[in-house]
């Protein structure tokens, strides 16, 4: 709106408009990820992910092996973090728990995001499709997530699949609405008109011009959604409708430790620190990306 006149004012020209010494400008994501904030986040997430991937190498015990010594403190020989109420090695339960969690969120979030984006693209095609898709999003948002979780588990029985399904369903409207909004905004921009006048077909304009510019908030949202996914998994375990025991998940180990929080706080410490590190890392990355994109 003000861009025309913007040029003529002498309000400080942002450096972006000046020819910089660097001939090729860096991608904003790279700039974002090289900030101290994002680096801390990447290190935190990287450590947790690595620990999960290397679980079979790092853990001295199977995650379900019982040693007979329950609620042992940290530093007990053979059990670095101690044992849980059933005498299972906590370190190995946390490490394998990360593995299970990663397996769930790495499938559920992209699946939900993909489905949401697909619906948003359908909505972009035609006004009628738009109305239908928007009502679908409204419907999905209207169901309280955890009650939906209870219902889905009642149908499918406890296990990995319902957890993945619940997380994915929760993410569909989030990503769908974001992308729909982004496409609507970008579609009115002048460079899109220019691309159409330049002979670009509908699909080419969408893929080459609109989507790359509408995708920024989605990237931030992925980081946010991964943290939400960790919480949903934990809450479902806590409510007893998560992954079937004895398979460990971060949420399962954590909720299992809750009754012993007063008498054996070290039980909760391992999984809690891991969850916090993962979530904190992801939010730091999201925040750094968000700042760079908004500039």
């Amino acid at each position, binding site marked *: *709106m*003000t*861009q*025309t*006149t*913007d*040029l*003529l*004012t*002498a*309000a*400080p*020209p942002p*450096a*972006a*408009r*000046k*020819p*910089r010494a660097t*001939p*090729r*400008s860096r991608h904003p994501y790279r700039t974002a990820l090289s900030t101290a904030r994002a680096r801390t986040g990447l290190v935190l997430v990287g450590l947790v992910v690595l620990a999960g991937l290397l679980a079979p190498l790092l853990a001295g015990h199977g995650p379900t092996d019982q040693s007979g010594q329950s609620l042992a403190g940290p530093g007990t020989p053979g059990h670095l973090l101690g044992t849980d109420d059933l005498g299972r090695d906590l370190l190995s339960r946390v490490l394998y728990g990360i593995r299970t969690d990663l397996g769930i969120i790495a499938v559920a979030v992209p699946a939900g995001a993909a489905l949401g984006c697909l619906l948003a693209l359908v909505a972009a095609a035609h006004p009628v499709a738009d109305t239908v898709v928007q009502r679908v999003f409204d419907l999905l948002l209207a169901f309280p997530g955890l009650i939906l979780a209870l219902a889905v588990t009642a149908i499918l029985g406890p296990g990995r699949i319902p957890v993945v399904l619940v997380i994915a369903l929760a993410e569909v409207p989030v990503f769908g609405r974001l992308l729909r909004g982004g496409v609507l905004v970008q579609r009115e*921009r*002048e*460079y899109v*008109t*220019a*691309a*159409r*006048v*330049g*002979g*670009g*077909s509908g699909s*080419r304009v969408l893929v*080459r*011009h609109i989507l*790359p*510019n509408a995708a920024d908030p989605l990237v931030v949202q992925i980081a946010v959604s991964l943290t939400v996914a960790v919480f949903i998994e934990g809450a479902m375990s806590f409510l007893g409708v998560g992954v079937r025991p004895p398979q460990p998940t971060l949420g399962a180990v954590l909720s299992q430790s809750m009754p012993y929080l007063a008498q054996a706080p070290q039980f909760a410490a391992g999984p809690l620190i891991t969850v916090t590190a993962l979530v904190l890392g992801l939010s730091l990355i999201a925040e750094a990306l968000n700042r760079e994109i908004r500039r």
Partner: protein
Amino acid sequence: MTAQELLEVRDLGVEFTAPDGSPLRAVRGVSFTLRRGETLAVVGESGSGKSTTALALNRMLPGTGHITGGTVRLEGRDLATADDAELRAVRGARIGMVFQDPMTALNPVLTAGRHIDEVLRAHGNRDKAARRARTVELLDRVGIPDPHRRADDYPHQFSGGQRQRILIATALAAEPDILLADEPTTALDATVQDQILTLLGDLNRETGTALVLITHNMGVVARACERVLVMYGGTVVEDGPTAEVLTRPRHPYTAGLLAAVPRLATPSGTRLTGIPGSPPDLTLLGDGCAFADRCTLVEDRCRNATPPLARVTGDVRVACLPAAGRTEPLPAPAPPARIDRPAPGAVVLEADGLTKTYGGRGARKRGVPALDGVSLTLAEGETLGIVGESGSGKSTLARVLAHAHTADGGTLRLRGEDVTRPSRRALHAVRRQVQMVFQDPYASLNPRMTVGEIVAEPLIAFGIGDRDARRERVAELLVLAGLDPAVAGRHPRSFSGGQRQRIGIARALAPAPSVLICDEPVSALDVSVQAQIVGLLTDLQRDLGLSLVFIAHDLAVVRQVSHRIAVMHRGRIVETGTADEVCDRPRDPYTRALLAAAPEPVPPAARPERVEKTRALA
């Protein structure tokens, strides 16, 4: 007349910190004085430091901006070192400010009256009824009809011109000694601009409030101010009475700027005069005259020492080393050159009774047609100028002609073939023929793509050439548009406005079209750069035999480049004719109003009708 010094600025310096940490010296060593009741224009192009100077006066610098040195004395009190409380007492009460864009400068959730009320309240008026009375009085004074009722309306219920009036009322509410207006009319149409300038002049005379008017428009300077300060590269290059500076510029930049302003009287087919090169990069400025690189009269000493602002005669001060010793007036600019181009040929594009109404979401928008039966023809090698104010439908017309939008009714023929509602395949063929250059060089380039990708995009879309052929063609197109082919790998954000417009032109030329629709291609550019882009377009027309539709709101530019002109008003063409005919002998009253409102960079004394006007007001 006892002139009294009100504001004295000495050696003001302002610096911004670029995101990479390097300093950017936006204002360097600026000194001037403002007398009580005086009208002073600060004129310059983008990056000249004129707005930054204005904002520094009451310390309103945005972001990382800070004053690095100098003093700003308001009746002896230095504002550059004043504390927050002191500044708050000055802002509004001693120095009122009006900003450029009336669309964003008013708070959307506050009523017009509340804006004024807040200022009165902030400066100590505790009586609610008195504030209300004063609010209505102020709105009435700035020309808001029915102020009692309108005081309770929200900004979105006013037109752009009315909003600017409300802003002026807000700025004057606490009766300041100085009114700082930063490009107050840039976002407005010429006729509204004229009204606002008249209002500012009247208020200055009535209340004795000194007016500092920041502008890029020499016409506005001539129209509204007694004295002018010309800025370039963060420094004042010339300071003197408007009549003197406009008729006898001492600084080569002032002279160049004046020569670059298109005059209404210049006949059709005349080249615009520009200043070669582009404004300086403030991060790279060292010693020496900032204008040296673009100056035709440059001497060795200009590059080594920063010229001081020195008095040459009477009231005129100039920052130019050679100017101090120069007794002759500056050499007159080269006489305007003719545009050499062949006469127009057969009709290429023909529109008949085009209509277009946007299906607005709000009830307000529905029903008002953007195009209401527009008919026109465009011949081979011809330039058709289309002039109109905002909302006249000229941009819609451009989009319909370029098939970015489809017309609701009427017919559009390309070389005799009906292309109003083409099939998908026919549309593709039409678009190869008809291309478009956009107004906004920032918004019309995809920020995610490199220049090479942007220019190659139509080649890929039309399936022209293979990878290597395309790369060659892109280089060729960039050269054609006056750019170094090596820039293909860079992103648009690292280019200036003029350079970006060249990229847009290269893109439009990619499919080798025969018709180019230019929608306000120079409206966003500085005058000194505008001539380069217009020159490029006319050269391309000559070399490639293009037919041009040239849309603008500035009649003077349109007259110079066009063979014929069509004047648009409220979705209709109210007058067409040869360019000279329309400008010299306008038939439609709207055309006459447009011509009368166009601000010309000629001092008031030289314009008889203006003298009459001021006399009538006095």
